[in-house]
């Protein structure tokens, strides 16, 4: 994530850099050994998934009465 308003050209450059980084076999192996699965997701799909998760965790929090301690 970058702050809202970050220029597209720069976000694209960061994205390309991260995509290349995440394709590195040695990096992928180290992550897999730590039970981290390097699955790449593009921004539109990511934002959709985050919105869905917010909704479903809100519903569960209401149902189970989970309230922030602070």
């Amino acid at each position, binding site marked *: 994530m*970058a702050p809202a308003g970050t220029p597209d050209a720069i976000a694209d450059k960061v994205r390309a850099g991260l995509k290349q980084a995440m394709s590195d076999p040695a990096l992928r192996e180290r992550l897999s050994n730590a039970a981290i699965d390097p699955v790449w997701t593009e*921004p539109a799909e990511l934002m959709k998934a985050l919105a869905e998760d917010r909704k479903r965790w809100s519903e569960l929090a209401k149902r189970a009465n989970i309230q922030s301690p602070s």
Partner: protein
Amino acid sequence: MYDSPMRKLIALLSVLAWALPTAAQDAYPSRPVRMVLPFPAGGPLDLLGRLAAQKLSEQWGSPVVVENIAGGTGSIGANAVARATPDGYTLLVTVDIPLTMYAAIARSLPYDPEKSFKPIASLARSDNGLFVNAALGVSSVAELVAQARKAPGKLTFSSAGIGSPAHFGGELFKVIANVDMTHVPYKGAAPAMSAAVSNEVSLMFGPIAQGLPHVKSGKLRALGVTGPDASPLLPGVKPLVEQGFPGRWSSTPTR
């Protein structure tokens, strides 16, 4: 034809305006980039962030510096990035919690989880396992459910605290499996896992890497994983969705 100096100037300015985005991209990064991780050093997110930062530094020939800004379930670090100048020199690498679970329960959130950030990508996912203390004597989720139904509320599950992923995981299990269990919050992920290992609580939805050594030592049993696929680290342990417990068990990944 005669061109006034002013006209030339206007023409030049418009060329510059068009050229600027490309130039900005070519020049970026011209100074160190700050990568904020909103959780303490040492966990899985920290590993991912540091490896990614190192690779970016190598590619760009310019440092990407990791900064752990922990606290407030990730909201303090996330807010620091939301308030930073949007110029690409401050980035956030986080698990989804400050944008999802914490956002769902926070009384007031200092940022808008939808509008305060520009998404770059999701880099990875990390799933939990359902770990039970071996003394419970169950070796499948079906047996666990049967035991929970015999004595509603008697089985206990630990978590790193109220509103933590393990808390949500346990509550989700109660809904999907239609059982009653009692939540016992601890102060952090490590004591929560220790409680399951020492049989202070019956079970925990915990990070696979954290539970694995205790499965190997025989103190815990892994009954299922929350992801869509089995984990290579827990061979033979099926996803919950394949064991008759449909639903979306896990959040989207580490980002």
